[in-house]
C-alpha cells in the first residue's frame, strides 16, 4: 500500500474511534467532568477541603475553547512546518545529488 493511502486509512480509524462513542452513547454528557474526581474524593473522604484555587480560570467556555484551539494550532502549525521543511529539503537534496553536488548542513532557521 502507498504511504498516503496507508495514512488515510490510519486517520480513518482514529476518526471512527472518536465518532463511535458519540453514536453508541447518544445520551451521555461528554463532559470532561473534573467534577467526577471531586465526587469520588468526596465519597472516600467527605471532610476533605481543597486547599488551593486555580490562579486564573478562563472567564467563560468560549475563552477556554479559544485557549485550547490556540494550543492545538501552535502544535499543529509546527508539525506542518516540520513536514513541509523536510519534504522540500529531501526534494532539493535528491535533485542536487543527481547533478553530482552534495548539500551541506541544513539551515532549519531554528
Amino acid at each position, binding site marked *: 500500500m502507498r*504511504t498516503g493511502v*496507508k*495514512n488515510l486509512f*490510519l*486517520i480513518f*480509524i*482514529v476518526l471512527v*474511534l*472518536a465518532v*463511535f*462513542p*458519540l453514536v*453508541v*452513547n447518544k*445520551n*451521555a*454528557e*461528554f*463532559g*470532561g*467532568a*473534573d*467534577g*467526577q*474526581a*471531586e465526587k*469520588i*474524593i468526596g465519597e*472516600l*473522604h467527605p471532610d*476533605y477541603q*481543597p*486547599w*488551593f*484555587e*486555580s*490562579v*486564573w*480560570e*478562563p472567564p467563560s467556555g468560549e475563552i477556554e475553547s479559544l*485557549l*485550547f*484551539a490556540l*494550543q*492545538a494550532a*501552535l*502544535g*499543529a*502549525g*509546527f*508539525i506542518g512546518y*516540520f513536514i513541509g*521543511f*523536510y*519534504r522540500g*529539503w*529531501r526534494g532539493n537534496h535528491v535533485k542536487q545529488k543527481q547533478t553530482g553536488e552534495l548539500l551541506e548542513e*541544513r539551515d*532549519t532557521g*531554528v
Partner: protein
Amino acid sequence: MRKNTWVLLSILFLLFLFFPQQNAWAMHIMEGFLPLKWCLFWYVLTLPFLVAGILSIQKAVKVDPGVKMLLGLAGAFAFVLSALKLPSVTGSCSHPTGVGLGAILFGPWAMSVLGCIVLLFQAVLLAHGGLTTLGANTFSMAVVGPLAAYVLFRLGQRLAMPRWLSVFVAAFLGDLLTYVTTSIQLALAFPASHGGVVAAMVKFMGIFAITQVPLAISEGILTIIVFNFLVAHNRRELEQLRVLSREV
C-alpha cells in the same frame, strides 16, 4: 491485531452498558485536590527526572544540532494531543498525552521537560491540572508515561517485532500507564476507609482505564503516522539518536 481491537471494543461496549452513567474526568489531578504533603512528595520525586531531562536534551543537541527540529516536533506533538479532548465510550471526554513519540526519539528523560511545559501551560491558562499538583501530574504524564514508552519500544525492537507495532505498543501503553499512575497517586492520598489504598485504586481505575483505552489506541495510531514520516525523511537524525540502526 485488528481482530484484537474489535474484541477490545466489544468488551468496552459491554462494560459501558453496565456503567451507563459513569463520567470520568480530565486527565490531571486538579488544583488543591492533593494534600500538601503529597504535592511536596511528588515534586521531590519528579525533580531529579527534570534535571536528567535537561541534561539529556543538552547532550542530544550538542552531539547533533540537527535534532533541534525533532525536539520541537516531539513538543508540538504533545501540545496538540493534549489539546484534543476526545469523546470515549464511557460517555465522557479525556485527552491523549502525546509523550510516547518524544520518548521513542530522545530516550526516557527528555520528555519530562517538554511534558512539564505542556502541563504548566494548561495549569496556568486553562485551569486544567494545577500548580500545586504539577509535580504529581508531571510524574504521571512526563516521567512514567515516557519511561514506559521508551522501554516498550526498545523491548519490541529487541524481540524483532515489526517497527510499527513497537511504536504502537509504546505509545498506547505509555498513555494508559499515565492514567494508572494518576489513579495510584489519588488512591495513596485518598485511601478508602474499607479496603484502603487498593479499594480506592480500583475505584479510580474503573473510571480512568475504560475511558482512556480508545484514546490510547488513537494516540498509538497517530504516533505511527508521524514516526513513519520521520523514517522516510529524517533517517540521518534517527540513526544519530540510535532509534534506527545504521544501514551498512
